[in-house]
């Protein structure tokens, strides 16, 4: 399959008074057409910044300072705002965490969709309305509710509107940042099923950004785990959960309670994530790593491809290769 998006050595820095925060530090990733990538990491790992930077929406004082974003072969980093606008929504779209803040409280739900469609496509009002009805049906909102305002919707229904807006223009790539984090489990599951359905019917590439490993396990084809601004492990979902190699992956998976297991022994990762203005020397995970050796404290490990499509940023696997 063809690569839809290739991220090469992307660097995003925030220039704050306290210093430069390297939120995304030389990240490389690729997504194929129709593929779902789960981007996981703890808060502050840079996963949201990475998601925003694909749309070049990183808020100031953040800036993309290096690397490439090759979308269907075209480098988005080089595009100015005017040209970028042709990609936003139409080719790449986004579902945000809290749909309440991304919807206009003074606009009816239907109007949101019609406006989006009419802004980007040359269609008549009637055609836009038809498309709107189709989209509402697709995400499971009864058509009668298109005349309602956002405040009349529950959290789950609002997220459905957010998803309808994101797929309104048939994008090739959908980025969803913590799209179920503000929802309760049952509603979360409904939305997740909706995403699964859309994934197959629209053949979109998807990047699901989440801190919830269990949730991502439900839907992702591939998993990328971020730590302190860097990808530490990248693999097929099945491989990641069964044969993960990075000590951070191991620690994280062992700290998540699993409802299927009885008498589970949880462990935790000592210490805490580093301050990104002064990240540790060498491997960024070494202060918390049980296997750290002298070389980890000195040199930064490369991202090693241990098998096809299984990369890990750790010295322990260099020899195996």
């Amino acid at each position, binding site marked *: 399959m063809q690569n839809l998006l290739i991220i090469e050595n992307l660097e995003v820095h925030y220039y704050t008074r306290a210093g430069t925060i390297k939120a995304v530090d030389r990240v490389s990733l690729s997504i194929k057409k129709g593929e779902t990538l789960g981007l996981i990491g*703890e*808060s502050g790992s840079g996963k949201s910044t990475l998601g925003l930077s694909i749309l070049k929406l990183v808020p100031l004082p953040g800036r993309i300072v290096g690397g490439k974003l090759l979308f269907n072969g075209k480098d988005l980093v080089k595009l100015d705002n005017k040209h970028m606008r042709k990609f936003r929504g139409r080719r790449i779209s986004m579902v945000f965490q809290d749909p309440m803040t991304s919807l206009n409280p003074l606009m009816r739900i239907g109007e949101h969709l019609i406006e989006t469609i009419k802004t980007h496509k040359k269609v008549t009002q009637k055609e836009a309305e038809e498309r709107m009805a189709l989209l509402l049906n697709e995400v499971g909102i009864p058509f009668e509710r298109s005349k309602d305002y956002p405040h009349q919707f*529950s959290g*789950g*229904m609002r997220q459905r509107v957010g998803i309808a807006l994101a797929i309104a223009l048939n994008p090739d790539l959908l980025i969803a940042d913590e799209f179920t984090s503000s929802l*309760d*489990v*049952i*509603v*979360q*599951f*409904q939305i*997740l*099923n909706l995403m699964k359905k859309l994934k197959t019917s629209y053949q979109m590439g998807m990047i699901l950004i989440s*801190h*919830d*490993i*269990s*949730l991502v*396990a*439900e*839907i*992702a084809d591939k998993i990328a785990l971020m730590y302190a601004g860097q990808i530490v492990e990248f693999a097929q*979902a*099945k491989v990641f*959960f*069964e044969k993960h190699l990075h000590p951070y992956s191991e*620690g*994280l*998976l*062992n*700290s*998540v*309670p*699993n*409802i*299927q297991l*009885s008498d*589970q022994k*949880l*462990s*935790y*990762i000592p210490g*805490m*994530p580093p301050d990104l203005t002064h990240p540790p020397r060498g491997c960024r995970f070494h202060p918390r790593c049980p296997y750290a050796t002298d070389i980890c404290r000195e040199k930064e490990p490369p991202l090693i491809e241990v098998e096809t499509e299984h990369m890990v940023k750790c010295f322990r696997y260099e020899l195996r290769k």
Partner: protein
Amino acid sequence: MIELEVVNLKKYFPVQKSFLERIFSRRIEYVQAVNNISFKVNKGEVFGLVGESGCGKTTTGRLITRLIEPTEGKIFFKEKEVTFLQGEELRKFRKAVQIIFQNPYASLNPRMKIGYSVGHPLEIHRIATGERKKKIVLEMLEKVGLEPADNFYNAYPYELSGGQRQRAAIARAMILNPELVVADEPISMIDVSLRAKILELMLKLKDEKNLTYVFITHDLAVAKYISNWIGIMYLGEIVEVGRKEEIFSNPQHPYTKALLSAIPVPDPARRRKDLTLKGEVSSSINPPSGCRFHPRCSFATDKCQISKPPLRLVGKDHKAACHLC
């Protein structure tokens, strides 16, 4: 031995109305946050109170700790009624019953040093002051893993991470040697890799001091990990309660079953099929008649719309409120 017993507890909050609505309508509406719940908590055990947002679990926690007054019902602590305690008696009760809040960014005063916040209960309850107080606080900080304790004693909350703040909040709750601790979503604001550490700390303190916990959470997987008993709440009511093993191996209420099947599992090999449960939680201002769960229940019959099912025994140490169980 029963440490805490709640009998037919109710809490209704009046709905705020605008000026005009108040003039033209006499009817006062209520949010039925907690509606007639009863449960018991054994000494030295963890009772996990689980439910979705808005189900009344936090209100229940605040009622138990007497932070708010119940509309109806009774609360017993050590077989003594505490529902209407006042003055000196209430103060004694509060010494024995402490609470840990969800948000450690809001529960610590940003202008007080950690040492002061943690030691303040000792002054309020006239247990220790000055050097003696400091000694107790330092010991407590060490116990919750805030080491070196001297540094943390003089730190302000902004200097601490979320996990460290929650440890400080736990230290403050534990400093009076309470017997019952209500923990309201204590790990939901904490980074994933540090959550297990807080849970471990809470279990360690419990074993050391033979504490009893009411652990409020929306996360069944966490409840399964930490609790001995589980109570499942839906729209202000307890729909199922029982020993953890019973609830997980033999769930009876359709809501519990739906909840269990909706929990994501960190294993792509176990992806689940579609779920039977449709729709969203009904309003607690005008809750559905009969069984409050009936509009979403795929097994609902006519009876469920009319009469409310009582919470009754369905197995050993296991109760459920459903006509069909």
